[in-house]
């Protein structure tokens, strides 16, 4: 009942605050739009908004990001279905059957199914998140010290490195590059300057906001600019024809299965929603009696993928809020929002800022419901907005990013750093590295080093001390097993075919 009362209080707080309502609605529409527009994603919007959250309260800032997360994951499905361009990796399996449905003239059915299943998956996940996060945080307060947090960071980075890029090597190098960027500036124990190259700007470290803006907003514009110049950019077209409720009801088992898969995958640090979408889709294929129809435009494919990825959104908030560990790029940016308000995400947030947590939870619940409403009412409007030529959108995004990067500290050098990060991101993506991995490394690097130092001091520099701390030991072992398994697979398993082709041939 506590959870219900807290949720009711959070809902009242959310909808009795006019600014909160405006931010909530902006997040719902903005996430959906940026998820839907080819060439930009919810991460672009989140990166642009990140500096401006300093002007909002922590509650509004985190709420805005969590709402964008929910609707952005759905918005990416629109581009996956219509143009075979997933808004983000978690929408990739949606394209396997969504795009063939578009080619068969059934785009409306696919988008409609995505709307309903995203809303269902996300809403159920939000409810489970509300029930689970507080008890986990309570437990974490007593059970988690620096050795456990370091072990958790290690495990999260091991998962992200192993599955977050094209190969384990590129995954690791991406994460390590992020960790190395985090080293620049003062060391967290003794305050000694590192890699400042005698430049005062680098003394405070490379700020994560220009870096994130560069990697996610600017590099994406550059990638799209190249496509535009080389003629690979395609204009959207669609008719809307939503499926009936009975048609969706026939897939109720697929929905429940994907919710369970999505939720448990979403909890894992690393790349929860992507794993969720793929496992949801794979299980749908495995359980189906008509598996040869997958990849050719089967509605169940869209349903399974979209339910699972939205089911992961609520789950991904659990490690962030209960343990302070971001699982992906967007939750890593949320850590940035917390830090800008001199807060650290983690179990203590429940003690010190319980109001914030429950407003965020209520917002996520209603954002998922909003997908249902806005998805049905506004999809046609979104489709019309998609017709805005990208060359007109790009200057707006680049200038917003400029203002955002400059506004953080009033330093032009931050704008230079952002655009250089954009160019670096452009070239790294060409060679298969993961910009999300770099950002995760950058954000977790500081936490990792600090907790490592504290853990070593606590354990008197003896690794065997972990044997008396079973949770930390389990996390370390899980991290090493993840690494070992992926290294083994890298050398001994056959490379996979492109997922789309593989599924089609199944």
């Amino acid at each position, binding site marked *: 009942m506590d959870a219900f009362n807290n949720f009711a209080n959070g809902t009242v707080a959310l909808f009795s605050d006019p600014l909160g309502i405006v931010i909530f609605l902006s997040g719902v529409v903005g996430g959906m739009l940026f998820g839907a527009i080819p060439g930009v994603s919810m991460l672009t919007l989140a990166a642009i908004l990140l500096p401006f959250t300093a002007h909002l309260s922590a509650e509004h800032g985190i709420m805005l990001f969590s709402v964008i997360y929910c609707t952005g994951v759905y918005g990416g499905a629109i581009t996956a279905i219509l143009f075979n361009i997933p808004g983000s990796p978690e929408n990739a399996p949606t394209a396997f059957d969504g795009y063939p449905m578009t080619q068969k003239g059934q785009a409306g059915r696919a988008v409609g199914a995505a709307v309903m299943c995203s809303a269902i998956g996300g809403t159920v996940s939000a409810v489970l998140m509300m029930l689970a996060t507080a008890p986990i945080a309570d437990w974490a307060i007593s059970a988690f010290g620096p050795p456990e947090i370091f072990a958790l960071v290690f495990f999260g980075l091991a998962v992200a490195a192993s599955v977050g890029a094209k190969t384990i090597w590129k*995954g690791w190098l991406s994460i390590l590059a992020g960790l190395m960027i985090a*080293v620049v500036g003062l060391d967290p124990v003794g305050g000694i300057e590192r890699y400042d190259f005698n430049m005062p700007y680098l003394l405070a470290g490379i700020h994560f906001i220009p870096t994130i803006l560069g990697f996610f907003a600017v590099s994406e514009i550059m990638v799209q600019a190249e496509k535009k*110049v080389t003629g690979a950019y395609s204009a959207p077209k669609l008719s809307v024809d939503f499926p009936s409720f009975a048609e969706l009801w026939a897939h109720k088992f697929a929905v429940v299965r994907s919710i369970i898969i999505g939720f448990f995958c979403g909890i894992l640090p690393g790349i929860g929603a992507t*794993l969720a979408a793929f496992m949801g889709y794979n299980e749908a294929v495995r359980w189906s009696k008509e598996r040869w129809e997958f990849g050719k435009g089967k509605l169940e494919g869209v349903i399974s993928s979209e339910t699972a990825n939205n089911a992961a959104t609520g789950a991904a908030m659990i490690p962030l809020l209960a343990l302070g560990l971001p699982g992906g790029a967007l939750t890593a940016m949320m850590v940035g929002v917390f830090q800008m308000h001199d807060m650290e995400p983690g179990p203590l947030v429940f003690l010190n800022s319980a109001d914030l947590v429950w407003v965020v939870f209520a917002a996520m619940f209603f954002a998922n419901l909003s997908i249902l409403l806005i998805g049905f009412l506004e999809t046609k409007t979104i489709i019309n907005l998609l017709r805005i030529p990208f060359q007109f959108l790009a200057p707006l995004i680049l200038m917003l990013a400029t*203002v955002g990067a400059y506004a953080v500290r009033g330093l*032009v050098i931050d704008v*230079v750093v952002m*655009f250089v990060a954009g160019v670096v991101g452009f070239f790294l993506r060409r*060679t298969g590295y993961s910009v999300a991995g770099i950002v995760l490394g950058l954000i977790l690097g500081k936490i990792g080093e600090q907790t490592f130092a504290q853990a070593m001091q606590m354990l008197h520099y003896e690794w065997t001390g972990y044997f008396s701390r079973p949770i930390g030991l389990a996390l370390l072992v899980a991290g090493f097993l993840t690494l070992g398994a992926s290294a083994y697979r890298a050398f001994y*398993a056959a490379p996979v075919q492109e997922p789309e082709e593989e599924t089609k041939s199944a």
Partner: protein
Amino acid sequence: MGNLKTGHLVEAGLWLLLALVLFIYSFEFNKPIEIYKFGASGWPRAIILLIVLAALGQLFWHWKRGEGGATSKLNAAADDSVEAPDDHSSLGWYMHTLVLVAIPFIYMRVPDFIGGMMGLPPDGLGTIKMLTAAPLLVLFAWMAYRNQVGGMLALPIFFAALLQDMGFYALAPMFAMGVMYLMGERRIKWMAGVAAGVFGILLLLFVKLLYVGLPTGNVRPFYDFGNWVVTVLQ
């Protein structure tokens, strides 16, 4: 050589070179910390070691597998990399792009260098900055016309490099038009209209409503123009 290609060797070489430079530089801050046994350099050196191991592991993997593919469905799913078009992956293209990207950095260094040689104070460099910017802009335009993608990569950095001196207010509309041109737009009226619209929205939102102070520049007449815009709006 196994399945190794030149690109694989270059990639590994770059990582190892980076690791070497970072390792050498780590001696600059290799100081003990009384309360912490590993000191300030322990953590970065551990990361450097892992970078070396991962770079060598990747090289060995390339040697065994060639380009290879994703090693699992999840790796394939998380792969957000983009294929480089053939005409944008030659050594010539990379060199051309490198020169384009270097132009803004030339601007960031040369006026101070000349001013230092002439003994000018930092606030007396306005004319030198404009005289440096003009030929670099011409060179940039000429090179970007021939390599639009390279131009698109370098233009934002050039914009940022000029921002401190020329200010956001004077540069932003021209930057917007430059971006549109490099992305293939050729209708002047549309470009001017969109640039004015985008500029107007930003000014209203950030300068008029949110009072965000954007760089006004420090070189006349750009500085005067920036201040005039701020005065009119606020």
